[in-house]
């Protein structure tokens, strides 16, 4: 977990006017921070996957904690067919 980047993002969104400052001049806001060049580059890209990676999440890891397990279709036992009525036995015409 990248604490610095997490705190930066939370401050960016929760402090009044800060997100507007970022959108107006992202370079200035990032220069004032102590983020690494890689983190700054991820934020400037606007690419969610890169930001997640900079936060320390592997691709798909974000989903791991929320995905529902796919439900396996239940293996239903086939409904037993009604027993066929026995036809009256054919008598063999064959001569014994």
């Amino acid at each position, binding site marked *: 977990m990248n604490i610095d980047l997490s705190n930066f993002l939370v401050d960016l969104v929760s402090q009044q006017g800060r997100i507007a400052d970022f959108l107006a001049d992202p370079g200035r806001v990032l220069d004032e921070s102590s983020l690494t060049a890689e983190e700054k580059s991820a934020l400037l890209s606007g690419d969610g996957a890169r930001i997640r990676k900079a936060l320390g999440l592997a691709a*798909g890891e974000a989903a791991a904690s929320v995905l529902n397990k796919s439900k396996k279709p239940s293996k239903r036992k086939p409904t037993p067919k009604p027993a066929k009525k026995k036809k009256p036995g054919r008598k063999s015409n064959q001569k014994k």
Partner: protein
Amino acid sequence: MSDSARAGELVVVGTGIKLIVQTTIEALECIKRADRLLYLVTEPATETWVRRLNPAAETLRDCYAPGKPRDRSYREMVQRILASVRTGAYVCAVFYGHPGVFVNPGHDAVRRARREGFRARMLPGISTEDCLFADLGVDPGDEGCQSFEATSFLACRCRFDPTSALILWQVGVLGEPSIRKDMQCRPERLRRLTTYLRRYYAVRHPVVLYEAAQFPISKPRIQRIALANLPTTTVWPITTLYIPPKPSRKPDQAVMRWFDEK
């Protein structure tokens, strides 16, 4: 609410998809005032924010473990939530997105708490589907909209109407019991899904691979491709597949004439 409800209360809320800005004011108040707060979110920034709002916050993430069946993890989450409610506390359970959309423990915790005589409710949150309608500019009221979990859809051959929109969730984890690092959907499984969809759609029918934006400074992923190209496209676990409707059928004129009746 019944006066005979036991001491202890549960409220289940969602954070929405995008960091902070999609949490409703109602959910925010519950998060702040909870005596005990249990959360399951997808990325560290939301976790940092939740912990700042309520220092009593405890993660439910440790209910997961490599190789542990997901169902068991969910049961443990519900047990932990219920154990907190039984102490008589005002408990808030926080989940990513909408707490009742693709979140088994959210509904289960509310049901069990009610069954045990506690006050329990769920507040709606913003889900990926809500973001999808906004980002793709589609209105489910126009032609109708059907949503399925992708593996169940394929395994059960779910019946659907291709003249309404189709949304397939978790298409990146077709038939996967768990998530691996850097995982993508297996091409042969995407081919199988494409073959099934080809029964209903033309090979050039457009489809959209969609991922909602998680941060206010990031963009959603919207990749439009032809259905035929689906098996050769990278599909991540968080990707959702949106299939626009085929042209609608001719309306029943007898019904349409109702509008002219006085």
